[in-house]
């Protein structure tokens, strides 16, 4: 006690380039680009936005050039505000980025070849749909990594889940059984991950990559041998779409959030349950303890390896559901490499979301938005080639993971195998 009486906080060196200043500067530059470049490139045609899922009944129009310049200035202003005030980081960053995007939209729509309207309802709906597998995948990652097992095998879990859903759904003519099988498919990869990572302390990133290759190979092979030869094994049917009365009529949000298959509602539920359970329950406390300091948990009688096994298997269930999205919602059959790298974006979403369920959920929505925007802008033939628009989620990922998250802190024991008595 004596020693601590006179403790002083160690003073951080007051570096000029704080995170707020750096981000503020970048946002300001983006704002300048938006104002000058987008403003110069835009035509005087108006950009139209409708609130429903189609372009009819356009509800809002913004003159192209004026919109590009005005929103560019908003982006610039918010960037400057962050730079000088160094406060309200989230607020200014969101305003600036949103304004930048709208400025860019004003320019692109005013120059689009085949249309001048964006259906915001459709944009929201596509955003949620594109985000679904990322949500399931990133929550799978959170479940594993919070407990100290690195999960690079999300892609494999999704792919195996997608295959199982398609196959079992076709054989039983029951999409619900397909859904359950998808979960089992995810668990299968999870069990392999747990077996090698926990039981045999294999380097976890390596085993994750190996499992992804394995899942790609085995599902590809089975697809060619079974499904390609007989389409009856590859028609799982699709999950019914449920509209929630009244709520589904809300403009923009209704078609996205209150219209969808069980996987849409399930995603929200999974995020909420995991977020609450991690912070508020005994399971959550122990899971986090095992991910941070397994030996400490062990000395208090927590079964470290048992908990890791349980959580990794649970992660398989979650990712498996995400896999079912591919073969029963976005498509109604399986093809080789159907998931196309979504598992890796989900991994990025987990990191972008700082290993938190809500954060991962928001990150998944952000990535989903980038993808949805690319496909909508592509459909009205805007001046940017669709190849670039399709890169948008990946570019967003790199920027997000590299710079915009700030100090990222993974669970301390993430990826570190734990052996009792060492």
């Amino acid at each position, binding site marked *: *006690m*004596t020693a*601590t*009486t006179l403790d*002083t906080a160690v003073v951080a060196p007051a570096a000029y380039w704080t995170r707020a200043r750096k981000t503020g500067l970048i946002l300001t530059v983006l704002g300048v680009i938006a104002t000058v470049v987008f403003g110069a490139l835009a035509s005087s045609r108006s950009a139209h936005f409708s609130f429903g899922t189609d372009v009819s009944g356009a509800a809002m129009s913004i003159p192209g050039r004026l919109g590009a310049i005005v929103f560019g200035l908003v982006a610039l202003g918010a960037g400057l505000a962050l730079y000088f005030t160094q406060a309200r980081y989230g607020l200014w960053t969101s305003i600036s980025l949103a304004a930048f995007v709208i400025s860019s939209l004003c320019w692109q729509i005013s120059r689009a070849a085949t249309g001048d309207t964006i259906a915001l309802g459709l944009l929201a709906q596509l955003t949620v749909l594109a985000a679904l597998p990322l949500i399931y995948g990133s929550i799978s990652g959170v479940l594993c990594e919070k407990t100290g097992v690195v999960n690079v095998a999300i892609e494999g879990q999704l792919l195996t889940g997608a295959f199982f859903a398609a196959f079992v759904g076709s054989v039983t003519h029951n999409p619900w059984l397909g859904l359950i099988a998808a979960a089992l498919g995810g668990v299968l990869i999870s069990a392999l991950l747990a077996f090698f990572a926990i039981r045999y302390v294999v380097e976890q990133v390596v085993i994750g990559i190996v499992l992804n290759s394995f899942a790609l190979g085995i599902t590809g092979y089975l697809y060619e041998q079974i499904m390609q030869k007989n389409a009856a094994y590859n028609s799982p049917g699709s999950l019914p779409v449920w509209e929630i009365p009244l709520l589904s009529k809300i403009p923009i949000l209704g078609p996205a959030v209150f219209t969808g298959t069980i996987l849409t509602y399930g995603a929200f539920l999974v995020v909420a349950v995991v977020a609450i359970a991690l912070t508020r329950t005994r399971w959550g406390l*122990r899971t986090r303890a095992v991910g941070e300091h397994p030996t400490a948990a062990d*000395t208090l009688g927590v079964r470290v390896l048992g908990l890791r096994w349980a959580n990794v298997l649970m992660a398989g269930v979650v990712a498996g559901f995400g896999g079912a999205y591919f073969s029963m919602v976005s498509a109604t059959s399986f093809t080789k490499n159907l998931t196309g790298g979504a598992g890796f974006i989900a991994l990025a979403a987990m990191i972008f979301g700082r290993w938190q369920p809500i954060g991962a959920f928001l990150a998944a929505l952000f990535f989903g938005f980038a993808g949805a925007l690319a496909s909508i802008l592509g459909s009205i033939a805007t001046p940017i080639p669709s190849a670039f628009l399709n890169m948008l989620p990946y570019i967003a990922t790199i920027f997000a993971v590299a710079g915009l998250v700030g100090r990222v802190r993974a669970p301390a024991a993430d990826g570190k195998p734990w052996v009792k008595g060492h």
Partner: protein
Amino acid sequence: MTARVHKNLAHAPAMRSAGTRRSPLRLELRGITKRFGDLVANDQISLTVEPGEIHALLGENGAGKSTLMNVLYGLLQPDEGEILVDGRPIKIKGPGDAIAAGIGMVHQHFMLVPVFTVTDNVMLGAEQIRGPGGFLDHAKARKLVVDVSHQYGLPVDPDAVVEDLPIGVQQRVEIVKALTRDVDLLILDEPTAVLTPQETDELLDVMRGLKAAGKSIVFITHKLREVKAVADRITVIRRGRTVGTAAPDAPESELADLMVGRSVLLRVEKDEAVPGRPVLSIADLVVADDRGLQAVGGISLEVRAGEVLGVAGVQGNGQTELVEAVMGLRPIAAGSIKLLDDDVTAWGTRKILDAGVGYIPEDRGVDGLVREFSVAENLVLDTYAKSPNGTRFALNRSKIESGAAEKISEYDIRTRSPLHAVGTLSGGNQQKVIVARELSRKLQLLVAAQPTRGVDVGSIEFIHKRIVAERDTGSGVLLVSSELDEVLSLADRVAVMYRGRVLAIVSPDTPRDEIGLLMAGITGKQPLPADTPGEVREAAGDTETPDAEADGEETAS
């Protein structure tokens, strides 16, 4: 503090959650044997802890004390022997069984989750639950922490995040954690290793209070002074065996002999230093730690030829960063470092070494040795490209090995051959490999950080002699150690570091208490240099109860 405990006990019926009140517990270990491969860590150890006694387990590093306690706590399974509680043999398969049997443990390396709050740490594994679904009852858990900490006089803030707490407070959290589990026997594994002398005294008070409350304590340590201060009975362990029991009034020399098995020089014999010109001159040095926070805050020091400058201080007060900055291993934010007449502030490590600086790093496993390399290879890590060990392009293996053989005999390195991997050697012999390597060059300056950490007493003596011998050849020595005894016995001048500053430079004959206060940041005459007192108050208030602050001031005045 003892008094306070008694007072509180009088009106404190056990607030604890579950479990019936046990009578004080009698523990008996019979013939415990634990082997790791060829090594017999515990060899037929028997031990009885009577109810309500403080039983000290005394022994050197590596004597097998911690192994024995890990067996008792269920972290390791014994190969032979049995454990009896109140006369009944019990099986302890894991820490859960130990806790259920009324045995708690405070580990040498704290078992706290750094990012959790105190309450979360305390309840982990024995959570307060409300309703179905396993929802945590934070309020109840928090109250338990507060109650137990009041009952036993262990002030902790239940809502503080553990990583923000000073070490001494973290230790209190550990004790509170054990006590909330309703244990009757508490194992304290080297609890004073990380504490300042004053914190140590407080811990000893807490131990007396716990004893008064009917708890038994097993106190593991290698520090004789503490044992004599607090123990009721002493069991000495050497090389995995019990070599004797003693009463606390046995003379220190007798205990030391039991520990080591032969007479040990507790003080290093050395002549008066003959300081020459300054070898190392540090001016206004500022260095940041890994997190970018200021670790060294404007230090000026001078090490002269032919003297040992000892840096004392509790670990984590900037010593590591200071040494790394001197060695060119860490960027320097401000200030300058001069070696003889050269300004070396911007020099790289290789250049600094070549200028005649030897370096014994504090963590030999990480910075001092390549564990997989042989003893011979480790002995030339700095000179492999120089004659006769090799050229720029090739190694001269035979010369390296014959050179290694010489050093192995000169420095008494116990290895089966020069070609054995250095990782297979004991800690003391690994350290001797480093010392041999560093001292075999012609040095101007030796930087020795924790040179005898985790080293057996025999090797400590040897390393100390070599350091003094190096001084006597006219080199300057910068010695950094968190073992105050080591600093006091080796140094010619002692610089006390606290929070990145040198609070004072004193003679090694200064009374321990005075240096202890300096290590705790209390200068006696004035408050801390520089920082505004207002800030100091605030920061202290975050982690300390008003009670504790009052305690601190009493001691300070």
